[in-house]
């Protein structure tokens, strides 16, 4: 039962093959038995899940069912869930029972979905390996010595380990696509503004975007159908009709032009990785797509630009974590400054503190123009690269990450080495473009992800391309060795 996709579960529930309570219980049991291995969940909401499942079954019996009624899923712990612990992977929020629902959470609740709980993540979504969680690292189901990627490592690992068929996630610099790539699952980061950020605890507001991780493009489309909405509570959310993302899955890709940025295939990308990606692109050529080499000349500036903008925004976004109205508060503060400094010093992990400090430094008096303004100008250059490229091509493809999953502990002592993990993903966040990662091969038994980059609001095209690939290949069906 746990191998079923969202689409299959939806059909099975409709056909009465099993009830929502049955599949929910099955997955809860599986989580209880196996998650001690992966550490994908921070909180399992068994009681609530069963209540939701029961309600879903009743609704179905009463004839009030839609595609999502009774389908289980889980949320990254960055989304606020009313009455449920919402930690963001941090000690700072280890006691934070959110008093309201994120719009994404409401959307799933309203659709009738069953939430199994809250998924592990790098603290405040800062990290590329899920080793920065206060609740411990997450294991990659394909190889327990390897990281699942981050920051949505819990989401990707839970889906790969068949603990849940689909999970919400967020992506600020690659946090959906890179873990999807490392865990051999499908992840989509929509256009900035497509999914409401209300109730999604902010890391870097102008880069953060909610999205989905699932086992197929079709499932990702079904999730996006629920997640994407116009939300008047989010000033940056776009007031634009949400298409049915499943409607164009079967469109032909014949005649489409795929752009391959030469900067994504440089010599420092291993020959094996290059081969895997080129093989995947060849599948599309077989389907009638054309390939064109393009250039995104400012690619090398994306990471430096990101590591000014994201820390600057996070340094302000995380100032509200001050031990006054919610969250961790130190013992016996002697004055207000002591309260701030110890609550924050104890509540935040090292990577979070580093980014807050980098942000504060680059924004401080006298440095603004050299860092922040320059980074924003470079951000436009990066965006302009894509705007120019999309005049000639329909979609851009390349690797999601420079390598398959790396070993736990391998990069923890060198933050910059960890940052370079996001070399191929980060530029999309700067530009606000949609991107997707689908499994397209393996190296040494570890999955490799193909990244698909679309033009603004072209999620349907990405999902269509992902689906077509998954019709022609079975990489997305492969399961980690030893998975029971």
């Amino acid at each position: 039962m746990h191998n079923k996709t969202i689409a299959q579960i939806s059909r099975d529930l409709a056909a009465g093959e099993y009830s929502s309570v049955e599949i929910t219980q099955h997955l809860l049991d599986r989580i209880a038995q196996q998650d001690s291995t992966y550490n994908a969940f921070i909180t399992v909401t068994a009681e609530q899940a069963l209540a939701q499942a029961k309600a879903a079954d009743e609704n179905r019996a009463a004839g009030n069912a839609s595609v999502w009624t009774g389908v289980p899923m889980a949320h990254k712990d960055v989304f606020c869930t009313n009455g449920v612990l919402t930690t963001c992977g941090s000690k700072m929020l280890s006691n934070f029972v959110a008093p309201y629902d994120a719009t994404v959470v409401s959307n799933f609740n309203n659709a009738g979905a069953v939430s199994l709980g809250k998924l592990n993540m790098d603290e405040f979504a800062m990290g590329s390996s899920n080793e920065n969680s206060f609740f411990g690292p997450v294991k990659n189901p394909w190889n327990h010595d390897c990281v699942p990627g981050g920051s949505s490592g819990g989401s990707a690992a839970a889906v790969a380990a068949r603990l849940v068929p689909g999970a919400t996630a967020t992506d600020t610099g690659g946090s959906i696509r890179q873990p999807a790539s490392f865990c051999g699952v499908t992840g989509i980061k929509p256009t900035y503004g497509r999914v409401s950020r209300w109730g999604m605890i902010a890391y870097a507001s102008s880069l953060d975007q909610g999205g989905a991780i699932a086992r197929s493009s079709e499932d990702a489309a079904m999730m996006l159908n629920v997640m994407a909405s116009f939300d008047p509570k989010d000033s940056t959310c776009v007031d634009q009709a949400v298409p049915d993302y499943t409607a164009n899955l079967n469109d032909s890709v014949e005649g489409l032009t795929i752009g391959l940025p030469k900067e994504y295939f440089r010599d420092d990308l291993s020959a094996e990785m290059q081969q895997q990606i080129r093989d995947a692109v060849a599948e599309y050529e077989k389907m009638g797509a054309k390939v064109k080499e393009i250039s995104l000349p400012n690619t090398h500036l994306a990471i430096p630009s990101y590591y000014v903008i994201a820390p600057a925004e996070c340094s302000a976004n995380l100032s509200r974590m001050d031990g006054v109205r919610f969250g961790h508060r130190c013992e016996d503060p002697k004055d207000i400054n002591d309260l701030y400094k110890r609550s924050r010093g104890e509540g935040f992990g090292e990577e979070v503190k580093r980014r807050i400090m980098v942000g504060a430094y680059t924004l401080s008096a006298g440095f603004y123009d050299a860092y922040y303004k320059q980074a924003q100008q470079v951000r436009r250059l990066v965006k302009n690269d894509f705007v120019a490229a999309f005049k000639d091509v329909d979609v851009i493809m390349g690797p999601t990450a420079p390598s398959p999953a790396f070993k736990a502990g391998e990069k923890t002592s060198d933050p910059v080495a960890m940052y370079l993990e996001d070399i191929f993903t980060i530029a999309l966040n700067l530009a606000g473009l949609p991107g997707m990662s689908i499994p397209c091969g393996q190296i040494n038994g570890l999955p490799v992800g193909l990244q698909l980059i679309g033009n603004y609001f072209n999620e349907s095209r990405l999902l269509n391309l992902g689906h077509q690939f998954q019709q022609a290949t079975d990489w997305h069906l492969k399961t980690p060795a030893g998975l029971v």
Partner: protein
Amino acid sequence: MALDQDQVRNIAELCRLQIDDSQIADYQKNLSSILDLVNQLAAANTDGVEPMAHPLDAVQRLRADLVTEDNQREHFQQIAPATDQGYYLVPRVVE
């Protein structure tokens, strides 16, 4: 670009982050290497390029001036570390 330890302490103070003296050297090293990374920006020619604050270059939507929120003090203060008579408590603030 290397930060010295006093700079690290000053930034930590600005951010209200307690950092043990034993960790200052680590922060010094890591922050310096991050700044080296971002200093690559200096090489970019950005003459005449409009800074980009938002990916979509969109404009602000306006909200009608309506009171839509009820009193939820009790609900919100359930998660507060310390409250009294409806106030959030902090160590005495001297002006």
